[in-house]
């Protein structure tokens, strides 16, 4: 594989990873935390209405998890395509 093909393949896999994680980000923040918050509030969750919990706390935990998962995935990808530093 030439170096430019290699870079191309690296980039498209990177995009796929970003899209996957940002979909989770979108579903948690906007679908669960905003659009469906009333419906989810009917479900009790450790003393919280679930929608309210996601809106004010749960989403933040998910964001932390997402950034770390992304960092680990990218470290692996960098090595796979031999573009790490």
């Amino acid at each position: 594989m030439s170096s430019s093909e290699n870079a191309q393949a690296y980039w498209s896999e990177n995009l796929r990873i970003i899209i996957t994680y940002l979909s989770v980000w979108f579903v948690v923040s906007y679908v669960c935390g905003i659009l469906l918050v009333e419906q989810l509030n009917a479900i009790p969750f450790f003393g919280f209405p679930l929608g309210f919990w996601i809106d004010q706390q749960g989403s933040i935990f998910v964001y932390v998890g997402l950034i770390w998962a992304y960092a680990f995935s990218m470290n692996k990808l960098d090595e796979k395509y031999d573009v790490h530093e």
Partner: protein
Amino acid sequence: MSLDVLTYLFIGGSFVLYIGIAIWARAGSTKEFYVAGGGVHPVANGMATAADWMSAASFISLAGLVSFIGRDGGAYLMGWTGGYVLLAMLLAPYLRKFGKFTVPDFVGDRYYSNTARVIAVVCTIVISFTYVAGQMRGVGIVFSRYLHVDINTGVIIGMAIVFFYAVLGGMKGITYTQVAQYCVLILAFTVPAFFLSLQITGHVLPQIGLGATLDSGMSVLATLDQLSTDLGFAEYTAGKKSTIDIFCLTAALMAGTAGLPHVIVRFFTVPRVKDARTSAGWALIFIAILYTSVPGVAGFGRVNLIQTINGTDNAGTEYAQMPQWFKNWENAGLLGWHDYNGDGKVQYAAGAAFDGKKGKPAFDGENRGEYGERAVTNAIADPAAVNGAPYANEVYVDRDIMVLANPEIAQLPNWVIALVAAGAVAAALSTAAGLLLVISTAISHDLMKTCINPNISDKQELMYARIAAVVAICIAGYFGINPPGFVAQVVALAFGLASSSVFPVIVMGIFNKRMNKEGAIAGMIVGLGSTMAYMIYFTFMGGAKEDLFLGISTGGFGFVGMILNFIVAYIVSMMTPPPPAEIQEIVENIRVPRGAGSAHAH
């Protein structure tokens, strides 16, 4: 020891620490001044980013805001943290690979255009100044309340401290003082939060305590809903704003967070691309410690406030019996009481207590009323109970006192109160320093060095940076002493600008190789112009609420501006020639981590 002595000790001690660090970390070159030499450890950078990001607004105002608006406050909690996901995945690693010093550096080089660069400089400076004014004011308020000095004296002391370590140390000094400031502010926020949570729910962690069940058999949130509806407020866990408004506000805050220049530049200071990614992860962990405590602090504070004022029998408390904190904050002008029903008791319910903007009291100098309360000149002639509340509201409570007054309301020991004061000052100073650095860099590097006179030496550039920092501090101090009456709206403007201009232009520069200067400039102008026009029309020119576009409030319009920016930029770029080959090569290059090296000069 008395509270005064403790407060002087805590704040004075923290200042000695900051100055010591500043002397140890003096900057000798522009590279040290702009990006701390490019060798900051990702964990240290994470802490510095957290302190940089968490301003007086996060520390002092956020819990108060959530406390008073309930679930809708989630837009701020999600918006101000979710932006880091965008930052980590869409901006930080690539900008680190690009390896220059500033946001205008990237915009100007990527779009091979000094016009684009200057627009980015203007955005950077406007965003940063609007922000910094609020920080200086925050320092002044804390000083006046706890150290009994004039607000103006407080602002000047704050200016002097920031001057010392920002001008001497540049990014290097700021980075390491911010690490210390993070430690101070996070202790100051979490210690009282733990105490409060333990006192009210028996759980140490406020994150868990908010879901706990009280002695009454009701959960904290159910109690809050009950108290709120009894007093005529909307349910605490219910939303009041329209869904589309909350959606846009959250999105604008997220994109705005990712596009704030003083946050972005922090990622230029780490050694490698992978460090930029993990550094964002650390930053969000450090931020989340505070942000996930906020809903607890807000909820407990609200329960405490209502029960302390209205008493367990919900009939109100006699003014003479009110605890000392009530009178302290009344003296500071952030609480006000007028006895409408003439029973000598303080009662709190929904509705405006006074005939002023946002129900604020206008105090009649130092004159006192019948019970020793501060007399007001704008009592409502014939107040009525609203929304089925048992009595008319007699109290104005400023949202901003929630965090500062919480330890007093909960009767925590004096050292906790002193710690909170030091934490609030740390939060304000750390953000102010980061912003001032961005302003001085934009002037010395992006304007002087790149646009006006590329021949100046490194030493001269460093001198310009220091002069610009001094001027910026003086302007910030001026706004701190003479605050424009619209600070809150201006902060919304800062996020609107960042989300409608800086964020999209950088994202397109990385992810769309075909994007050219014509597209980028057109996009920025449309995004910026539409957002500013919307905000100015509806905030200052009396635009009617009914005319809002789809009911989106000014704070959320930055999201619409961002969409417009993307669309216009795409269409214009398709109708104009593609960028030159060497620019496309730059884009290819920043997409791959290897070969980042340390941040370099031109």
